[in-house]
């Protein structure tokens, strides 16, 4: 039973979007993650998705807004043909508010649920609204690996990029459930990040990353509020990678994936 050598997946990070508690965009996150400014948590504010047609804009929930905001940040400064850009949406769960509303309604005597809310309840709601907003007919997927959803999404994005030799946008996001689900799945805050990954270096590329599956302890963050964010939100499990990218230094980071399996990333600015 020979185990072959782990394969490496390589990509160039072209742009980054971040939205989280006290982190309004990538430049502000860089200052915090590089240690130039203190981290001060504050409620996450996701702007309405201006690229959606008005009818759709009214319908989307907070989770979709969060995902689309981070995605749009990452694409703001690129000249890519977004209509042809493949996307990977990674989230631990779907829209918590809708889930609570449905379960409460279905436990009551009147089981009428809203048709619009029903189609917004799917795990791929952000993916669907993104393709509508961007008129993107490119492949788009939506996945979950519970607390390892960021790593699972990154692995999927890197595999797509490697096989198709084309850029991929990864969007990882999670928001808190309302009670009583929150007590059972205490996601600490709304957090999203987006990485625009490309198979070749181009103007504006900030780093090369090489990924491999490993068995090694996942990196933690020294700053306690940031570490709480990392532990408290599955999408924020990617913070050690974002910190390395923010510092602009060469190094290796290990991010949590599944029990007994992590994703190691060599970062080369």
């Amino acid at each position, binding site marked *: 039973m020979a185990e072959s050598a782990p394969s490496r997946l390589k990509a160039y990070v072209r742009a980054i979007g971040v939205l989280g508690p006290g982190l309004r965009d990538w430049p502000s996150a860089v200052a915090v993650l590089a240690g130039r400014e203190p981290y001060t948590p504050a409620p996450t504010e996701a702007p309405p998705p201006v690229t959606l047609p008005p009818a759709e804009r009214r319908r989307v929930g907070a989770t979709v807004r969060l995902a689309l905001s981070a995605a749009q940040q990452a694409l703001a400064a690129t000249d890519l043909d977004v209509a042809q850009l493949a996307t990977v949406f990674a989230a631990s769960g779907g829209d918590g508010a809708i889930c609570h509303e449905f379960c409460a309604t279905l436990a009551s005597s009147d*089981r009428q649920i809203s*048709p619009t809310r029903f189609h917004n309840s799917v795990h791929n709601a952000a993916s669907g609204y993104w*393709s509508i907003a961007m008129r993107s007919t490119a492949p788009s997927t939506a*996945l979950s690996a519970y607390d390892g959803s960021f790593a699972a999404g990154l692995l999927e994005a890197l595999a797509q990029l490697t096989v198709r030799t084309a850029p991929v946008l990864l969007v990882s996001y999670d928001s808190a459930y309302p009670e009583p689900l929150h007590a059972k799945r205490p996601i600490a805050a709304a957090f999203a990040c987006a990485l625009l990954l490309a198979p070749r270096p181009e103007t504006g590329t900030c780093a090369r990353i090489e990924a491999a599956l490993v068995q090694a302890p996942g990196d933690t963050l020294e700053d306690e509020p940031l570490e709480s964010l990392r532990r408290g939100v599955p999408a924020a499990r990617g913070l050690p990678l974002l910190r390395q990218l923010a510092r602009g230094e060469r190094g290796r980071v290990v991010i949590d994936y599944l029990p007994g399996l992590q994703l190691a990333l060599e970062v080369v600015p």
Partner: protein
Amino acid sequence: MRPLALSHFTATSAIGRGLEATLAALRAGRGALAPCAFETVALETWIGEVPQVDAIRLPAPLARFDCRNNRLAQLALAQDGFIAAVEACAARYGPRRIGVFLGTSTSGTLQTELAYRRRGPDGALPEDFVYAGTHNPFSLGDFVRRSLALEGPAAVVSTACSSSAKVFGSAARLIEAGVIDAAVVGGVDSLCLTTLYGFHALQLVARDPCRPFDVARDGISIGEAAAFALLEPLASDAPPGTVRLTGVGESSDAYHMSSPHPDGLGARAAMLGALAEAGRRPEDIDYINLHGTGTPSNDAAEARAVASLFGTRVPVSSTKGATGHTLGAAGALEAVISALALRHALAPAGINTTTPDPALAVDYLTDNRAQELACVLSNSFGFGGSNCSLLLERSRG
């Protein structure tokens, strides 16, 4: 893409546990839809319920995963020697080199719906409700990975009704990139109130057993299923007739959250993508297992897409009249049905359909057709405009 072998596969749906029962039902044109008597659901509709899922018990160490969806997963894994095949595969490659990529739309949501009825006076969910093991989409992936003692990468794709078709692509890419050597792919979706009442709210549910592509079709019948396949590189000494995955086509409609593009542009792009990956032309295709849900607009859009590429030359059918629409499990279930079609030279009829809609310009099969099949497409399209088409092949003779 480099072709991969479906070296082992199995399916359990309302029409049967395992391949033998599934094939027998297809051969007999026997469906399994019945008037809905599920749980406390009070809707006039027909459903494809798998019998005796409630009787399944999970092994004690995996008790925290107990919910209808994982019981159905366990029931299906136990058929057709699938577990032994995975064990043999793990012995060949090592458990860390085998991935698990599964699709579901609602995972163990029924468990949460039931827990909400047992909320305490303070509104809290009961002590015994385990979110991670039941409700979360990854509950399915975690449960199956642990059940099969696999240690490689895993994820659950949840793109509504294309979920368990898209996992074939995710697994194939990781194999091609050399990250893993083989993968367990599949899909499991089980009945719950959210989908039954949700599709009802969208007025997409048929009152009678669904009749895909019929002139009088009026909606879907919801079903449940679990289907699994073991994907691995095609061995040089693979048995003749081994079913291969040769193409996966994926696209987005970019049109509407719950209605397909009226001309089926996304469906067409997915089928073209699968053909391109396989290096095949439309004239190579011998049968198409349609998404064919039975709603007026879905079938019309898919028919336009199929007609634009294949005309009336290729026999097509939807097996959802027999199984119901198994949502997140449909991609994997129908990939397995397509593999059976290839293996047993049977293009299965779309049952319940008596008068194919003359406005849908395709060769819709209302009777089984016994014929050698070498190339089969299986279509799966979901909410959010998520489309996936799989191309499966079997060498002739």
